[in-house]
């Protein structure tokens, strides 16, 4: 497993070396195509001056806030809509109409309501990240084993406890899958909103550097962004594995039994 990953990273390093070579050999000569070593220098300088903390800190803060709001709302509403066929039928057309809207399209109208600061960005991030979590939670609640629900009924478990103690845990693998999709979406939308409106964060930074023709700083920010996105996903996968130990155990049992 570790060996496989190292081999995978070898390709990343190889591609970066090719990039370096393309500049050093003189094949590509352009202000907008700096060598990897130059970008890394910009990256290190940024760390030394503490600039990345500011650039990424504000972005990650908005992203985390938007994502958490989305997760909270998505899971709660998903539980209710998954458990009640009637509410599901009533709410779904409205939700579908909102879901298909590309999130950048709702930025201009929301600027009227929320201005261009954090409130706007967090709202847009939350809306975009909300739907995968919602839809997955609904699917997860519906996928609960009917035998589990009958067991809860024969023990006269109250409705609310069935929802939280049986249907929510049953939905958890789906919830995690939805959250992982939404985490990626949240990062994308964070950067996009910062590019459209605002004066802070990594999206704003990348655009500014491009306007200022400072390609090294621009690429440095992009590389860092990619690294952060990768790490977030890995962290989330680790959390998911810990929380869903029972689901994996169940799969193993099914495979052996």
């Amino acid at each position, binding site marked *: 497993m570790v060996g496989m990953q190292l081999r995978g990273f070898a390709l990343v390093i190889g591609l970066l070396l090719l990039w370096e070579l393309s500049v050093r050999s003189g094949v590509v000569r352009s202000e907008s195509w700096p060598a990897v070593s130059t970008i890394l220098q910009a990256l290190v300088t940024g760390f030394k001056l503490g600039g990345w903390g500011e650039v990424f800190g504000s972005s990650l803060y908005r992203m985390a806030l938007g994502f958490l709001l989305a997760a909270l709302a998505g899971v709660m509403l998903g539980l209710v809509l998954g458990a009640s066929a009637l509410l599901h039928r009533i709410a779904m057309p409205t939700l579908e109409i909102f879901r298909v809207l590309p999130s950048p399209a709702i930025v201009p109208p929301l600027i009227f309501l929320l201005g261009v600061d954090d409130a706007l960005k967090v709202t847009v991030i939350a809306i975009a990240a909300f739907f995968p979590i919602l839809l997955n939670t609904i699917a997860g609640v519906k996928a609960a*084993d009917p*035998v*589990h629900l*009958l*067991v*809860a*009924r*024969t*023990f*006269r*478990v*109250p409705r609310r*406890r069935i929802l939280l*103690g*049986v249907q929510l*845990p049953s939905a*958890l693998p789906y919830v995690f899958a939805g959250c992982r999709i939404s985490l990626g979406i949240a990062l994308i939308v964070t950067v996009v909103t910062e590019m459209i409106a605002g004066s802070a964060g990594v999206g704003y930074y990348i655009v500014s550097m491009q306007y200022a023709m400072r390609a090294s700083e621009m690429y440095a920010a992009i590389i860092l962004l990619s690294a952060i996105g990768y790490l977030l996903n890995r962290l989330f996968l680790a959390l998911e594995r810990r929380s869903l130990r*029972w*689901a994996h*155990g*169940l799969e*193993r*049992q099914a495979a052996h*039994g």
Partner: protein
Amino acid sequence: MAELLEIERVGKTFGAPAEAIVAIRSVDLSVAKGEFVSIVGPSGCGKSTLLQIVAGLVPASAGEVRLEGQAVTAPPTGVVYLFQQYSRSLLPWLSVEKNVRFGFSHARSLSPREAEERCVHYLDMVGLADFRRRYPWELSGGMQQRVAIARALAAEPRMLLLDEPFSSVDALTRLELHGLILELWHKTGLTILLVTHDVEEAVYLSDRIALLTRRPAQVAEVFANALPRPRKPVESREDPRFLELRHELLTRLLQPA
């Protein structure tokens, strides 16, 4: 003897009136307090449906089920249904102990200490006290069904409804579970209604056996079981009274429609 359970002209039809399938024509049966009664019938005759009607999990289309004179319309207190599929009836995200606790914790307000003591008590009865921190999917099929039995008993019901609970474990484990259930029945003074297609199981365990016809089901005959107690796994099965009843039941079951 006082009748605990009365099943009176219970019928069940599925589907729209025009193309309705009659699963149960009309079943009459009563079970006295402390009695062990089995319902035997060919596969697909509707005996599990009948048991679910008794459990209040499925509404009857006709007739009435009464528990101590009260009509059953929803799962009544003190009646627990034990499912055939142990691997689906235990909640995989809960430890063995928490699964047992799931059956009673909402019913009475017990201190955490009392709740734990009760779990250990009933897990001890089925010989699994040492496994209480394990997860269901870490246990063998027979052990899982014993956890399900402990969970049912921990709810301290008056009546246990068993839906072919021994049919998906291996033959030796089945004999062990037979012994266990008889021992627990003897100790707790429970009333047990068992549904099975295994004639030997029914004869070995019960006081009376109701033979159902093919679908649409009705009671063909109720047999009193003269096999003396305590029942012994080897000797009882060689007893002429065991063989005679088994012969009668099997012959009737195998009769062409």
